[in-house]
């Protein structure tokens, strides 16, 4: 199984190395979307990575498939691949997909004053969507909302029916808003959620955790390379303990981030996936700030320029850690869960994870 995963990740890594460069980043920041690069990604089957084999997927274990999100983060891929390949899996039972579609996620932080009202055979969706990643480029937006009975529903909205107001993240990626304007939905667009699986907010947080773990891994590599090349006082700055100690501390945070994100990716089909995802988003988000700060400190003035590539990773870290819930949001959820178990119950709970 791992052979297939490694083969797919190898090819994906080569594709990203080929395609992701300053030109692609800049085009995306200028508001464009590279249909060509997206087509290459879809053609390789990456958007269908998490589908079953009979649906045109690779039939991978979910955790193995999710490592693609880490890899996309490592390359600072300026395309909505992470949300799409998870979205494809979530809508596979109701929409026939070609693999070229772009599917994006609206977590609870992206939805304001939203309601789902029954209307005849179908539904009416009321409210606002805010700062949806890649919204204006999307074909479908996925969101979870409670209906009047209090039960959660998973809603698929066709994105071309919305009037998008463009905005961007710190990394210059599209983060767009739209009013739902009493949008009429067919019965097929609204289904019950899988009660044990992650919510859309949780899927989003998991993806951002994996992407951040990847981007941090790359930022560490860049900082180590720079420290070995840059000479001051007659020797590479890597030879100074002040630099070594900072980068070693950063490496510890990068390692923790990778471990937390990977553990959450393994938990999506378990009993309480939300807990491990909360741990990952809180822990990785905290590490991201420190990792970005050290990477910049080591790069000094050179890393503070547009010409250097470091900022394509660090600006993504700063933007991703804010999305699908900041650290306190997830820390609060963890705190509530643990306080409900109490001091004595905490260990049996934690050791079972």
């Amino acid at each position, binding site marked *: 199984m791992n052979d297939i995963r490694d083969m797919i990740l190898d090819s994906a890594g080569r594709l990203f190395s080929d395609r992701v460069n300053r030109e692609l980043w800049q085009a995306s920041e200028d508001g464009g979307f590279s249909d060509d690069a997206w087509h290459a990604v879809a053609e390789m089957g990456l958007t269908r990575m998490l589908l079953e084999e009979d649906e045109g997927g690779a039939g991978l274990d979910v955790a193995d498939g999710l490592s693609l999100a880490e890899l996309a983060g490592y390359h600072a891929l300026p395309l909505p691949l992470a949300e799409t390949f998870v979205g494809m899996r979530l809508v596979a039972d109701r929409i026939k997909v070609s693999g070229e579609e772009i599917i994006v996620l609206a977590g609870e932080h992206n939805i304001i004053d939203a309601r789902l009202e029954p209307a005849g055979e179908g539904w009416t969706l009321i409210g606002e969507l805010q700062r949806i990643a890649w919204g204006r480029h999307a074909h479908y937006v996925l969101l979870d909302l409670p209906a009047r009975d209090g039960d959660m529903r998973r809603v698929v909205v066709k994105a071309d029916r919305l009037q998008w107001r463009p905005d961007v993240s710190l990394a210059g990626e599209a983060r767009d808003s739209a009013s739902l304007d009493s949008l009429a939905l067919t019965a097929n667009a609204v289904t019950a959620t899988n009660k044990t699986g992650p919510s859309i907010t949780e899927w989003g947080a998991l993806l951002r955790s994996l992407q951040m773990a990847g981007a941090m891994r790359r930022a560490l590599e860049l900082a180590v390379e720079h420290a070995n090349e840059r000479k001051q006082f007659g020797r590479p700055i890597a030879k100074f303990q002040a630099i*070594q100690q900072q980068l070693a501390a950063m490496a510890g945070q990068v390692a923790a981030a990778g471990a937390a994100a990977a553990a959450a990716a393994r938990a999506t089909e378990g009993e309480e996936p939300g807990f491990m995802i909360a741990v990952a988003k809180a822990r990785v988000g905290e590490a991201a700030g420190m990792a970005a700060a050290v990477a910049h400190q080591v790069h000094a003035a050179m890393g503070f320029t547009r010409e250097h590539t470091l900022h394509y990773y660090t600006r993504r870290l700063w933007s991703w850690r804010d999305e699908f819930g900041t650290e306190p949001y997830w820390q609060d959820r963890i705190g509530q869960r643990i*306080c409900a178990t109490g001091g004595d119950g905490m260990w049996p709970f934690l050791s079972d994870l």
Partner: protein
Amino acid sequence: MNSFRFDPVELPDSALSFRHAARSFLADELAHERFTPHRNSWGTYDADFSRRCGQHGFIGMHWPQRYGGHEASALDRFVVIEEMLAAGAPMGAHWVADRQSGNNILANGSEAAREKILPQIAAGECFFAIGMSEPNSGSDLASVGMRATRADGGWVLNGTKIWTSNAHQAHYLIALARSEPLGEDRHAGLTQFIVNLRESDGITTRPIYNLYNSHDFNEVFFDDVFVADDMLIGDEGRGWQMVTGELAFERSGPDRILSTYQLLRQLVDAVAKKAEGRDLIAVGRLISHLVTLRRMSLSVAGMLERGESPELEAAAVKDVGTAFEQEIPEIARLLVDVAPSLDNGNPYAEALAKGMLSAPCFSIRGGTREILRGIIAKGLGLR
């Protein structure tokens, strides 16, 4: 650049049955009030508790049966140790022997040493101390000045060891000594010796009281102490390689994460009563660290089980883990208005006082934070 590898580990069924066994053992111990859970765990010396652990098969778990072991896996041992630590069980007496000395003897010791010592350790009746640091050799361990000179049928040791936990109560100490004059390669010419602390002539032990006024460590003076040939560990002059190998076991275990777990447990109960937003967030943050560190530590145990040598990963676990252990008292003192006290009977006050006063040593013992980061920096290709 080397990168860290923390592959996910699934616990085998055997580990789950060991967890069950450890839990029922500990429940029974607590039901009979045989130890106070909120004090300390691997820092508390309790020879009777260690003997009961031996009787239940919780020491030397992964050693061969012919040496008194139980042929369990490193992951089985991991589970038992974390259960003991989480319960606050007083493992201090057998701790060093079980975690590292026994492994060292099993891997590198003479057959005579294995046969004589390992079964006693596994029975919970034989305890060890670490003889690495010296008054003038701390982080720079290769500079040890203890001399080992040849004698009839063995060696004679002269010198001083320091920060030696339990030297006044343990049966043996493994001393790192210079057996050849210092040459160009300062890592060569070092040898490890098993010293019988109770039966050898020429040993004087001076107590050193620590920050919480406890007599844990000592200064140990060696004046012509004889060690027989079969108590030498491994090949003469190869001590450095063994010491560094041993440290991978010493640095990555749950003991580098759970030193202040009893305080965290008290904190959770205190915060659960108030259930205020800010406090829940602070506790949630600590738990996100703990859960992550546990995965990392487990992953290193998995690598040790597969016979790999995860020295970099072990250094990272200790660096990040001890920072977490140190943070717990810093946060606990701000969230709950209870004054720390070492012995007023209030579990929160006692756990907080113990946590505050022991925290400085977490990032010193077993390799300082700076040394660990130096090892990581080397792994990253910076030195």
